């Protein structure tokens, strides 16, 4: 049969069409974002300039941190990652703070690649990272975005708005646009409540991961300061007040950053303490008062919850308190 015989030509064409149809079928079955169109890309997985800028700092086994407390957040998030993962954190100051945590999973070291982790388990991965951040930083009042990418695609994103539960965006190829508002936000002032000697503040605690209440204190000269805390929650569940050097969050107030109260007090001070404590007890309030000899400088007075291990929350989670500087 001649090679250009009509039958052979038709047969060859049908075979070619069949071959190409099989190739076309192999590219079917993607998720909606993966439907092979730039329109899909534009609305779906197109990477924003802000995200690309932060991605540029992703380097295996390294933390990149940009913005206030970003290094601390990166260090905390690193606890939930494999050693070879890349991590970049950007914090935009303001009320609320915007925190974006980018993670690129390593493809070596015996750890699973992102693509090998089912979508259902990716949310657990996100939970672990968010929990690690909250344990150290308590970002419940911040805008928080955590995104995990593999070699090419983002496959898991968690976004949490202040005081809200986590929103998960997980899949083979997902839109990163949910991170854009966090990445493109303009830095703003952070109005931290202040306390002065002789003043008092009242408030209510909120459960983890909401941050512990913190008050800025500025001393222009060294002096003795009494920090008095009363609360409607008594006993072991009552809150406690701690003074830290600098303007910090509770998580940043490590032991070496907190001030030690005086142990030896004069009789007049002790009498005053006993009298105030008795009045608080009569009123059904817990009472704590510590006395500090403080140098001039910036300090933070933090009211700590007395967290417990109970599943349904702790009695002191929503305690009302009054903190007073004397």
């Amino acid at each position, binding site marked *: 049969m*001649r*090679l250009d015989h*009509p039958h052979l030509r038709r047969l060859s064409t049908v075979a070619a069409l069949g071959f190409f149809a099989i190739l076309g079928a192999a590219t*079917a079955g*993607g998720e909606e*974002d993966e439907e*092979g169109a730039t*329109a899909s*890309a534009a609305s779906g997985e197109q990477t924003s300039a802000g995200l690309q800028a932060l991605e540029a700092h992703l380097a295996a086994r390294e933390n990149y941190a940009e913005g206030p407390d970003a290094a601390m957040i990166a260090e905390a998030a690193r606890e939930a990652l494999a050693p070879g993962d890349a991590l970049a954190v950007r914090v935009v100051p303001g009320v609320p703070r915007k925190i974006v945590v980018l993670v690129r999973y390593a493809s070596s070291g015996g750890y699973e690649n992102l693509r090998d982790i089912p979508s259902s388990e990716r949310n657990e991965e996100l939970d672990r990272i968010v929990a690690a951040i909250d344990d150290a930083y308590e970002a419940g009042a911040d805008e928080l975005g955590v995104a995990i990418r593999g070699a090419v695609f983002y496959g898991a994103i968690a976004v949490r708005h202040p005081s809200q539960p986590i929103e998960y965006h997980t899949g083979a190829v997902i839109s990163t646009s949910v991170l854009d508002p966090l990445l493109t936000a303009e830095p703003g002032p952070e109005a931290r409540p202040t306390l002065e000697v002789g003043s008092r503040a009242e408030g209510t605690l909120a459960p983890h991961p909401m941050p512990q209440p913190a008050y800025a204190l500025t001393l222009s000269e060294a002096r003795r300061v009494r920090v008095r805390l009363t609360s409607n929650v008594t006993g072991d569940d009552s809150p406690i007040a701690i003074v830290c050097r600098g303007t910090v969050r509770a998580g940043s107030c490590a032991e070496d950053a907190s001030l030690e109260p005086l142990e030896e007090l004069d009789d007049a001070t002790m009498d005053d303490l006993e009298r105030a404590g008795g009045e608080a007890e009569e009123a059904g309030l817990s009472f704590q008062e510590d006395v500090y000899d403080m140098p001039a400088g910036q300090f933070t007075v933090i009211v700590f919850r007395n967290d417990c291990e109970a599943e349904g929350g702790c009695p002191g989670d929503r305690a009302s308190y009054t903190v007073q500087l004397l």
Partner: protein
Amino acid sequence: MKRSKRRGAGVGCGRPGVHTRVSSLALHAGAPLLAGALLYVGFRAESLLGWRWADALGIGAPARALRELLGSFGHVPDWVRFTAPDALWVYALTHVVARVQRGARPPERALWLSIAFALGPGAELGQFAGVVPGTFDVFDLITTLSAFGLASYFGGRAPLPEIAERTIPT
């Protein structure tokens, strides 16, 4: 005798006519398919059916290793990832059809090419009309139309097979 000699001489011996045909086919069909396949392997989702086929065929692991390698080259623009593979596929398909049918009568050639058109730009138009699932994009339409036009042109201009031209049917 003449035919067998030519065939024998042509296969793998670098005779100009056969070599040109092979390299032309590789350039216009093989290369686009290879490029498109690499884009799919390296930069598209693993939920695609092809990955399940690869696993079933036992080539999933090397395919993923290739994907990892390709991914290490970094980010590719979205139009490369999403639009180029479709255009390359349409080009290769149309070229093969046009090439095979270049000796056919014009009506029959047009008929076969219309199938390639329907599978390429036609599918995009079908998305616009809402009869084909997917997202219509005018850039995709332009690229697949261009691919179809170019491939029809080059495929139709390919030289006819020497054997068919020069042998006498027995």
